[in-house]
C-alpha cells in the first residue's frame, strides 16, 4: 500500500519529464490554434446558424485547451479554473442561443443566417 502511495504520483500524469511535457504542451497549443482557426473559419463561412454556434463551441474548446496548456506552463491551476467558467458560459450560451435559434427558425422557417439582415442600413 505504501509503495502504491509512493508511486501514485506517476499514475495519472503521463508526462512528467520536461521534454515530453513540453512536446505535449506544444501539441496542445498547436491544437488550440488549429481548433480556433477552424472554428473561426466555420463561423465565417457556414450559413447554418446551428453550425455557427457549433463553431463558437469549437473556439471555446480551443481557448480552454490553450488555458490549460498555459496553466501547465505556469504550474498553476488557475487555467483550469477558468476553463470551468468557460464551460459555464458555454452551457448558458448553448441554452439561450439554441432557444433563440429555434425561435428564429419558427419565424422564417430557415436556418440560414442571411435571412436575418435587418441591421444593415438602406
Amino acid at each position: 500500500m505504501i509503495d502504491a502511495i509512493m508511486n501514485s504520483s506517476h499514475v495519472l500524469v503521463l508526462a512528467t519529464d520536461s521534454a515530453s511535457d513540453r512536446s505535449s504542451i506544444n501539441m496542445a497549443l498547436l491544437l488550440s490554434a488549429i481548433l480556433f482557426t477552424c472554428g473561426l473559419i466555420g463561423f465565417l463561412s457556414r450559413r447554418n446558424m446551428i453550425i455557427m454556434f457549433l463553431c463558437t463551441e469549437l473556439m471555446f474548446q480551443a481557448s480552454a485547451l490553450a488555458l490549460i496548456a498555459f496553466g501547465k506552463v505556469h504550474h498553476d491551476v488557475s487555467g483550469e479554473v477558468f476553463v470551468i467558467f468557460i464551460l459555464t458560459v458555454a452551457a448558458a450560451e448553448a441554452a439561450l442561443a439554441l432557444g433563440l435559434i429555434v425561435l428564429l427558425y419558427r419565424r422564417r422557417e430557415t436556418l440560414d443566417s442571411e435571412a436575418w439582415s435587418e441591421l444593415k442600413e438602406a
Partner: protein
Amino acid sequence: MIELASLSNLTAQALGTFVPAILSDATSNGIPASIAAPELRWAGLILLLPVISAVLCGLCAAMRVKSKLPGLITAVSLVASFGLTLWLFLSLSNADGPVAARTVHLFDWITLSWEPTHQHAATRWTSVTAPFALYIDSLTLLWMLFVTGLGSLIAIYATEYMESDVGKGYARFFGCVSIFLFAMGALVMGGNLILLYLGWEGVGLASYLLVGYYYTKPSAVDAAKKAFIMNRIGDAGLALGIFLIWVNYGSLEYSALFEAMQGAGADGASASWTREAIPYLIMLGAFGKSAQFPLFTWLPDAMEGPTPVSALIHAATMVTAGVYLIARLYPLFELHPHALETVAWIGCFTALLAATIGMAQYDIKRVFAYSTVSQLGYMFLGLGVGTSFGAVYHVFTHAFFKALLFLCCGAIMHGMAGQLDLRKMSGLRNVKGFGIISWTFLVGCLCLAAFPFSSGYFSKDAIIGQAFASDNPNFNFLGWVAVLTAGLTSYYAFRVWFRVCGGPTKYEAGDEVHSDADEAHDDDHGHGHAPAATTHHAAEHWHPHGPRIAINAVLLVICAGALLAAVPAYNAMSGGSNWVQRMVAHSSAFEGAQLHDAHGAEHAHHALSFTGIQDVHTATSVVASVFGMAGLLIALYLHLLNRSAADHLRNGLLSNSLTRWLPIAMENKWYVDEIYHWTFRVPLWALAHVSHFADKNLIDGVVVNGVARLPMDLARLFQPLYNGVLQGYAATMAGGLALILAWVFWIWMQGV
C-alpha cells in the same frame, strides 16, 4: 429810370457798402473767442421746454386725452421758448459791438480722455469730449429766433389745423413737433459737433415721424422712410466728416475747433487726404438734410406729412440746417476753396433742376416743395460764392415767405377738403373766407419771385450779385444760371397764384385724405379707404370753409414777418446797417478776408459791366428783376389771361418730336427717382438677395453643414462592411483581430 438808379444805389448801399467795414472789423478780431458763461444756464430751458412739452404730450397720448390740451401745451411751451430766446438775444446784443460767443456748459454727455501719447499732441487729441453745452453766438441767436418764432406760430396754426385729429393723432403730432423743436435747438445751439449731430438726427427722426403721420397711407410711410434713409446717407457723411475733423483738428467743440482751424495752416500738418475730404463729407451731410442735388428727392415726397409740418420742417427750419452747418463751419470751408466752389455748383444746379421740375407740377404743395429745393440751392450758391451773409439772409427771408406759402397751401387744403391740384381750383380770392389766404399767398409769391423790394428780392440779389462780383468766371456763369432760375421761380410761383387765386371761381373738393383717413377706418377690419363715404360727402354736402381765427392770425403774422424781413435791408439802404449781416459777421460764418481780397464790391469790372451800372449789386438787381418780371408776365399770360394757351403750348411741345422730351421729363421730375431706383436700390437689393442666398446655402449649407456631414459621409464610405449579415460583422471583426495579432507579433514585438 432815374428813380431806378437811385434805388439801385440804395440797394448797393444796403448790400455792399457795409461789407468792407464790417469785414475788416471781423477779420482783425477773427472769430470772437468764446466766453464761458455759466450765468446763462437758463438758456438750457429753451431746449428743456420742448422736451417737457413732448413728455406731457406723450402722457396725454397715454391718458387718451380727448381735447386740444397737447396743442395748447406745445404752443405755450414753444412760445415760452421763443420768449426766452428773445430775452437771450436782447440780453446779449449790445448796441453795435460784436456779440461775443458764449459757451454754456449744461452737463457732461460723452467724456473720454486719456494721457497724451504724442509729444506734439499735448493739448488736443487727448480726449473725445462732447458735453451738453450751448454755443451761443449771433448766428445761433439768429437761427433760434426764427426757429422758435416760426415754430410757435406754426404750432398755434396747427392747433386749429389738426383739430379733426383731436383724441387720435393730436398728441402724437404735437409731441413730435416738440421733439423737433428740441432737436433743432440742440442742432443750432449745441456747442460741439456731436451735439449738432444729435440734433441733426433728432430732426430727422421728427421729420420721419411727422411725414409718416398719416401712417395708414402707404405713400406717407414710404415717404417717411425715404426721408429718413436719404438723410441717413447724408448723416453718414456728416459723421465721417466729424470724425475726420477730430482726427485733424483734435477737438469737437466749436471754441477749440475754430481756434485750431484758424491756425490750421501754421500747425505744420501736411495736407493729407483726410483733411481734404472733410468739407466734402460735411457737404454730403448738408446736402442730405437740405435736399440738394444727389439727395433731394425725399423732400417733395415728404409733403405727405401734414401741412404745418411741411411749413415748419420742410420749408422753414430743418431743411436750412445744411446751410447752418456750412455757415457754422465756414472757417473750415474757407480753408478749402475748391469745396466751396463745389457747393456753389451743386447749389446752382439744384436750383435750376428743382425750378424746372416745379414748373411742371400740378400739386401746389409739390410746386412749393421743389421751390424749397430750388431756394435752398440759392442758399448754397451763396455760401459757395462766398457770401454767407447772402445765404443766411436768404434763409431768414425764405423761412418766412416759404412758411407763409405752405401755410396758405395748408389753409386751402384744409378748406377745400384736401384739394391740392391747381387745375381743379380757380379764383379762390373771391370765395368767402379765402380772402386773407389769397392775399397773404400773393405776398408769399411776390417774395418768392423776388419781386423788387420784397424781402426775397434783397436776399436773392445779395447772392447773385456776389456771384457776378467774383473774378472766377465759373461763378459768373453760375450767376447767369441763377438769374435764369430767378425767372423760372417767378413763373412757377405766379403760375400757382394765378391758377388758384386768380381767374373765374371754380373748385372741386379733394378726397379729405388728411383728416378722414383715421376717422373713417377706426373700425376693426377696415383697410385703407372707405370711398363710398367720402364721395357721398364730397358730392352733396360739401362747401369750402374758410379758416378760423388761429390760422388767419398766424397767416397774417407770418405775412407781416415775410414783409418785415426786408427791413434790415431797408435799414441798410437808409444808412444803417443790415442787422442780419451784422449778426453773420460776428459769428463763425463771417466771410474771411481771403475770399474778398480780390473782389471787393467796389471794383470796376464785373460780369455785368455791360449794363453800364458800376455797382455789381445794382446791376444784378436790374438784370434779375428783368428776368423775374418776364417770368411773372409769362405766367400772367399763360395762367390768368389765356389759360388755354398753356395747354396749347404743352401740346405743341409734346407734338414736336424734338421737344417732346422736355415736358415729359419735367413732369416726371427728370426721372431722378427712377434712376436712383435702378442704379442703387435694385443692385443693392440684388446683392442682398445674393448675400442671403450665399449665407443660407453656401456658408451654412455647404460649409457648416458640410463640416457636420463629413463624419457621416466618412461613415458611409465604410458602410458596405456592415451588410447586416452576422457573418459580415464577424468577418470584419476576425479580420481585424488577425491583423492586430499579425501586427503585434510580427512587427511591434520585433522592434521591442
